[in-house]
């Protein structure tokens, strides 16, 4: 590789990847066909950096870890001379050495996925989204076999007021994809997050707070973008049988699945 090309290159797990100025690590990785697990990221929407599934390590000799970082190495962590960043929000900078698909990072991601499962009420076998659910697919990808932590069993409200869209907050993972899609693509600003900490929850921007009074329509991206089963189109349940669903036919790590996922109700894929 020429010196000029090196100036626009990052390294992910030893593989040199070209990037364009302005791309994030995630952008560059996906463009090069490298999968970094993610849930709150969707190309075309403003990066968010909240789910932290895309956490990667950057080797950076300028950042020395503090004594407090070093002291607990013995039992769990070994990768001390690196800093943790979100690939979806961190700009790609020439020369970055990034660890992504490592056992350590995938273990961290599995724990984060377990956290997402146990803080909500995710009952995959009875969920219409099963097989099309990115959370479920990521969990399989990371080898997650159980929730590991005690369930929080939160009480969350269902909003069935809308004639054609269902909002089941039990499954919401607060990724804000619907918030951003509505604001940035649909131009409607239908959704927002309210509350704080473990009580953060999805709300609807309408006088009554109900979906029926919002401007949401089934043609909106926000009605289809939910990676879990929190926002579902009514009267289209189980149109695609289990066994023929997105992640029955695809791996979550395949690049460019977004179109397939968004077109789910029409499932042109078969």
């Amino acid at each position, binding site marked *: 590789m020429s010196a000029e090309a090196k100036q626009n290159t990052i390294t992910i797990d030893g593989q040199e990847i070209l990037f364009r100025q302005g791309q994030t690590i995630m952008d560059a990785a996906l463009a090069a066909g490298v999968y970094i697990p993610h849930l709150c990221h969707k190309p075309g929407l403003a990066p968010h950096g909240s789910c932290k599934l895309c956490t990667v390590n950057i080797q950076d000799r300028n950042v020395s870890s503090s004594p407090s970082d070093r002291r607990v190495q013995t039992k769990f962590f070994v990768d001390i001379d690196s800093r943790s960043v979100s690939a979806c929000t961190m700009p790609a900078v020439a020369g970055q050495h990034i660890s992504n698909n490592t056992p350590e990072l995938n273990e961290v991601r599995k724990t984060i996925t377990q956290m997402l499962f146990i803080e909500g009420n995710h009952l995959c076998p009875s969920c219409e989204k099963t097989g099309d659910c990115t959370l479920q697919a990521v969990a399989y990808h990371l080898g997650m076999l159980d929730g590991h932590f005690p369930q929080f069993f939160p009480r969350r409200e269902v909003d069935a007021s809308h004639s054609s869209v269902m909002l089941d907050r039990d499954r919401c993972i607060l990724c804000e994809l619907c918030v951003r899609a509505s604001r940035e693509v649909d131009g409607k600003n239908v959704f927002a997050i*309210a509350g704080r900490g473990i009580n*953060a929850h999805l709300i609807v921007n309408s006088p009554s707070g109900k979906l029926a009074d919002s401007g949401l329509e089934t043609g909106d991206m926000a009605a289809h973008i939910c990676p879990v089963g929190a926002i579902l189109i009514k009267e289209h349940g189980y149109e695609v049988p289990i066994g023929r669903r997105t992640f029955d036919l695809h791996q979550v790590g395949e690049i460019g699945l977004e179109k397939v996922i968004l077109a789910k109700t029409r499932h042109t894929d078969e």
Partner: protein
Amino acid sequence: MGLVLKVSPDKSSSSVYTIEQIRSVVAEAHSESPRLLHVLHALQQRFLHISHEAVRVVAAQLDLPVSQVEAVVEFYSFFHKTPRGRYDILFSNCTSCGDPELMRRLCQILDVIPGSTRADGLVSIGETSCIGMCDHGAALLVNGMPIVRLDAAMIDRIAAMVEAGTPLADWPAGWFQVDGNIRSKGLLLGDVLAAGDGLRAMLSRGATDTLNEIIQSGLRGRGGAGFSTGMKWKFCRDAQGDAHYVVCNADEGEPGTFKDRVLLHSHAGSVFEGMTACAFVIGARNGFLYLRGEYRYLLPQLQTVLAHRRELGLLGDNILGQPGFDFDIEIVTGAGAYICGEESALIESLEGKRGIPRVRPPFPVTHGYLGQPTVVNNAETFAAAAHIMQHGSAWFRTTGTEKSAGSKILSISGDCASPGIYEYPFGVTIQQIIEDCGAQDVQAVQIGGPAGTLISSTGFNRKLGFEDLSTGGSFMVFGQKRDILAVIRNFAHFFAHESCGFCTPCRVGTALLKNGLDKIAGGHGTQYDLDEMQRIGMLVKRRSHCGLGQTAANPILDGLQRFPHVFEQRLVHRDFVPYFDLDAALEKARQITHRDDAAAHLK
């Protein structure tokens, strides 16, 4: 029961107030300040809650989405969707200025369930995070006003005055007396700065030389992170934007910190002078002081200082006769959210949103308030800058160490004879501080608050400074009689309560850490649970979005390393004990049936 309708905290209560009344309060507050937080505070104060109707009125008046107003109401601890009592009492739950026993006593006397409003609407009692009165013993806020030096006899008198409906103005004035408690003065507190002297010195030096002076002084951010103040100003000055802004972070929410309370009470002029100097250097016309809601009682006094400075020509147009040197300061008051001490969350809050830390980069110096270049500095940093204007960088560097120039103002509290404000040159040993504040038989010191470092006696020879033990000002002393596990558990509850909920590791992780510590402290933990604390703690520390999550596990990780025995002596020596506790699960049933006798327990 006829009276209940008027004040009962149910859905119908908002209909007690007409929409015209709500509109009138909103319009009046909005004419005073365009800030959403200000308007919501006015509603909370007038109607004791912010109803859904009120949310809609505010959204219409301020031309904001209903969801944004709703989200903000739910985010800040001092806003409520259901009515609080006419006496709204919040006990600090800090290890230094809190006393849960006193809260229980008041709840018992007044027959209030903690966290709720009494059915007649007279009084509500709850907990709140540290209110910065740690040098005054146990403390509470009643309708936003601090009452300090609480004891059981005072609680009894408070209960009587609440029942009698005595207006707060007729409560003993001494109860509200908050002292400075400045125990030792150093570089800043010992130096008298006449209003405008620093600015005059600055003007004679010019903006570029002033900036160089700040850079050469080695002044670093006093909030604890320690970024070079001069470089921050330089980056902001060099950044392109439609406008530049100066923001003073006076949201000192770190439990055990109260030095900004004293600075703003006794040295507000220096803070404003430093902000004005910064404005001159970076070319800002507008500045904000973000005051934590717990210090709202300081507001009238701060407004007086600002008005006085305007009269003196130290704020406003053509400051000190310098053409084009226009700058003024607006005070924006928070509403109970520790996270707003994080600079980008603070900016979000200034913009009338939930205090969610932004993705960085870009940093506020290039993309801050309204996306424009913004300097956010701690109140103490601005005060230090004002003194550096006056005396120069060499004067400042005579104190402190090579990497930590100058002095640090500490808020010392906990198990010591003389809690209060102490100013030390950087480089002082922890042992020296312990001796000066009259602490004996010290078991542990928490430096920098829960987000900082917990050290045992083996660390008392360590030094205060950015190269060793950094602190935003909190210094909490724990004697031999303290239950360190209870302290750590208190901190775990604090972080779970204050997590903004944006990122998964912090939102869920702080809740898991809290639950785990409750299990261990409750005598149900095993070695497995300790290992889990360590594993989750490291993940939360490394993978969280902002400084809150990155430090939230510190007390637990420090505790496991330096005080392992306090955990181990509570462990059950079995491989596994489930979280589910049948007896604890009956607690709600006991509350509903008002029973707590032996037969209502399974143990």
